[in-house]
């Protein structure tokens, strides 16, 4: 199976719009080719590929909306899908605030970089072998995955929107563990297989696993923390999910609600959403075919604006930033390509500056307890260390935290210059490491 081209996906979207007998119509085509080789206990145990194309149609009658989608692409199935969308719109109540589907705007389409055809099951297996060997030679076992995906996305509507693009990613993860060792973690995420060094991440994880054996206890309390970039990515993701959408802003569920222009976070924190930056893997347009804007969400600690789509732009009077999700969207617009601006420190220098604190490699199973202060709870895992007198001294048992992200990001006193890109729940995050003055650990495992 080969990925659908952007031109073919656009033609399919335009065809679907043409089949939809409504006042306005929109079609989104998402064609995905994914391959994932998973390993555990130093052997491949799951190895899967998938090819799928879905067409989603939104029909508009006056201000009434209805949606339907299908992965059957023959004329009869597409016509039935269009008819289902029209029927849904017909039976829906009017929404006087619906502004209509957006008009076309210029979109800069990103060049596709990944060539997954040259990275098939044998190449994935060889990559896994290189990762696993780093654990095996140390008497450890490795688990993780090597994944490649290509998504072709096209959006068309009855006002002339007609955009398409292909985006690809390569991702690998490795968890190393074993008798007499703790657990160590490393990961890779890029828009291309170029620069993917399986042995290097295998080595990083195995080295860390050996350093985390015999972990110590830590009494609950507030500690200075140095968060490695992957831990920061988790926190930023939840901040974006609950606090940086125009919908949560309007509904009073965001830390920004009624507080735009206030200094809420540390002046060391600047957050943007920028799908167009060179490091991003994101689409350059949203699921209404509107160009994604670079949005300053927080500038030197001062709240700037949430992201919008056509509906929430009209409701708020804010510009449309191009952050629509596929219709029907009951979540609202979301930032999917967030970045925290770099500082001038290194991770080592942040650690050296801490008298007593905790170093966190990454978090696990984070969830929201309170949306406005973005109070989160979750665990540390795979590389948590006590910092004493500027050095990582003892590995720690996994710790539970219960902490407001807003309060924590108000106490940032160091930001690394180096940033890393991670795949997140929302999309991706390009983040530095952070030094935070107070972080509430409320329990531990063991």
């Amino acid at each position: 199976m080969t990925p659908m081209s952007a031109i073919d996906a656009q033609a399919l979207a335009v065809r679907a719009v043409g089949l939809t007998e409504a006042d306005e119509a929109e079609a989104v085509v998402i064609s995905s080719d994914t391959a994932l080789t998973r390993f555990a206990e130093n052997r491949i145990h799951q190895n899967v590929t998938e090819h799928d194309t879905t067409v989603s149609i939104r029909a508009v009658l006056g201000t009434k909306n209805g949606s339907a989608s299908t992965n059957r692409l023959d004329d009869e199935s597409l016509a039935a899908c269009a008819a289902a969308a029209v029927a849904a719109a017909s039976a829906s109540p009017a929404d006087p605030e619906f502004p209509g589907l957006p008009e076309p705007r210029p979109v800069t389409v990103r060049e596709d970089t990944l060539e997954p055809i040259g990275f098939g099951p044998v190449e994935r297996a060889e990559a896994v072998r290189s990762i696993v060997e780093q654990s095996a030679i140390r008497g450890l076992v490795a688990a993780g995955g090597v994944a490649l995906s290509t998504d072709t996305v096209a959006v068309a509507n009855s006002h002339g929107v007609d955009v398409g693009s292909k985006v690809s990613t390569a991702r690998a993860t490795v968890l190393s563990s074993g008798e007499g060792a703790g657990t160590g973690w490393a990961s890779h995420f890029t828009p291309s297989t170029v620069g993917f060094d399986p042995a290097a991440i295998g080595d990083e994880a195995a080295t860390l696993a050996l350093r985390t054996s015999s972990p110590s206890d830590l009494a609950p309390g507030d500690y200075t923390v140095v968060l490695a970039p992957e831990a920061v990515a988790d926190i930023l993701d939840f901040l974006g999910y609950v606090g940086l959408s125009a919908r949560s802003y309007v509904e009073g569920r965001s830390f920004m609600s009624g507080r735009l222009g206030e200094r809420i976070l540390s002046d060391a924190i600047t957050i943007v959403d920028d799908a167009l930056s060179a490091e991003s893997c994101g689409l350059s347009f949203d699921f209404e075919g509107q160009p994604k804007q670079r949005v300053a969400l927080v500038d030197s600690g001062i709240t700037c604006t949430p992201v919008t789509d056509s509906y929430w732009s009209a409701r708020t009077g804010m510009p449309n930033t191009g952050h629509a999700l596929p219709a029907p969207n009951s979540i609202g617009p979301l930032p999917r390509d967030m970045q925290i601006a770099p500082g001038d420190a290194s991770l080592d220098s942040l650690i050296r500056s801490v008298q007593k604190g905790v170093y966190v490699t990454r978090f696990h199973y984070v969830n929201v307890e309170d949306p406005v202060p973005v109070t989160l709870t979750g665990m540390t895992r795979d590389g948590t260390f006590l910092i004493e007198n500027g050095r990582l001294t003892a590995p720690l048992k996994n710790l539970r935290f219960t902490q407001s992200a807003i309060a924590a990001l108000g106490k940032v006193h160091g930001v690394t210059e180096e940033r890393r890109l991670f795949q997140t729940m929302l999309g991706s995050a390009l983040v530095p490491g952070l030094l935070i003055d107070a972080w509430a650990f409320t329990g531990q495992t063991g």
Partner: protein
Amino acid sequence: MWDVVEAALDAAEFAGASYADVRVVTAREHSVSVADSRLDAAATHESSGIGVRVIADGSWGFASTSEPGTAAATAVARDAVAVARASALVARDPVRLAPVQAHIGTWIAPSERDPFTVPLEEKVELLLAADAAMKTVDAIKLTRATMGFYEVHKYFASTIGSRIEQRYTESGGGIVAYAIADGEVLTRSYPNAHGGDWAQGGYEVVEGFDLLANAPRVAEEAASLLGADPCPSGTMDLIIDGSQLGLQVHESVGHPTELDRVLGDEAAFAGTSFLRLEDLGTLQYGSEHVSITADATVRGSIGSYAFDDEGVPAQRDYLVKDGLLAGFLSSRESAPSIDRTSNGCMRADGWNRIPLIRMNTVSLEPGTWSLDDLIADTERGLYVETNNSWSIDDKRLNFQFACEIGWLIENGVKTRMVKSPNYTGITPRFWSSCDAVCSRDHWKVWGLPNCGKGEPMQVAHVAHGAAPARFRGVEVGVGR
């Protein structure tokens, strides 16, 4: 459809597979949601395709496609064998499967009123009416009302001779009222949080919730939370309602007893388990009041089926019996590690995913108490209802749950309402502190259609039966 299935099986065997199974799945979804007195979404989605899983050269391979027809089925079967041969490049022992008999049969779950033929106008009218009933309370600034429906039709065949066709419909829904003031967002849901409650069946499931009648109470409780005291911090006896206890069972019993987690297969993503193979029959998981079953035969539960996605018949099995670890959720590949055959827990999230070990209806068996008697028997405690947030570590030991609402219990009487209660614990210590479980009169199966596991992420529809139960000396009000 069987011609497509047979073509894929033949192609897999011809390409060298020593074992193959094929699933052709068609799934329909329909969702309607209302937010703040306007229609938020009305949508249908259909997806169909074929997934072929094979063993070749002693290793697994899987490939899937949405392209219809026998030619695509043949091609995808060959792809699966090529993928398996690549897996064999980094292998250990050849895959060994526990035996299962070949089965030929059809199963259709009972359903009364087809939700896909109920007019959209009727659904919207019900949701808007419930929404309006919540809006009558001043402090309610935001409301949501949702309903959703799934219809799944799948064909399964394997090279051992099974040919199984299964169809079922699931329906669910719920309402949420948000009281928002001064930077506080307090939520009350019915009949459950995170999308409501779900069951196998037709539109009668949603009608049975009586969303409209419950809307005013839900709104009043959410509004009352604004003026309620914060949850106190400390250690006290905790009584957990059935819906929250269902999620507690899910996270701290269901997931850790998944045998693939115990064997390390999910280590890098969702994590492993604190349980070891040798704990079977010896580990004291909880007190003698704690018996937990895994049952794929509960009528009307979204955790029910006739055969799992390996063709293993549905079963009822003990995971914990009178406090002792009695079993694991297993598959044909994992069951030999405990010298058993599969108890039929392998399910896939659609045609494009491999089956994984998933919960079915994993339930805390009922005890003998009435809730009134249990509260009266509690000198100082906290009673909590309805999940708000959940988190648990990678070995399923250290958990923390937040609930929507709580009430203090003082001298055997439910007294002041408290907002944002949460509690934390360590799994076996927590279940060992259970000293009372309410009776079958209070016991109910809660449908949970959003259980995530695996990579690529799969979402399983599972369920949990539970009645309120009491746990002694639990840490509550964490970080408050």
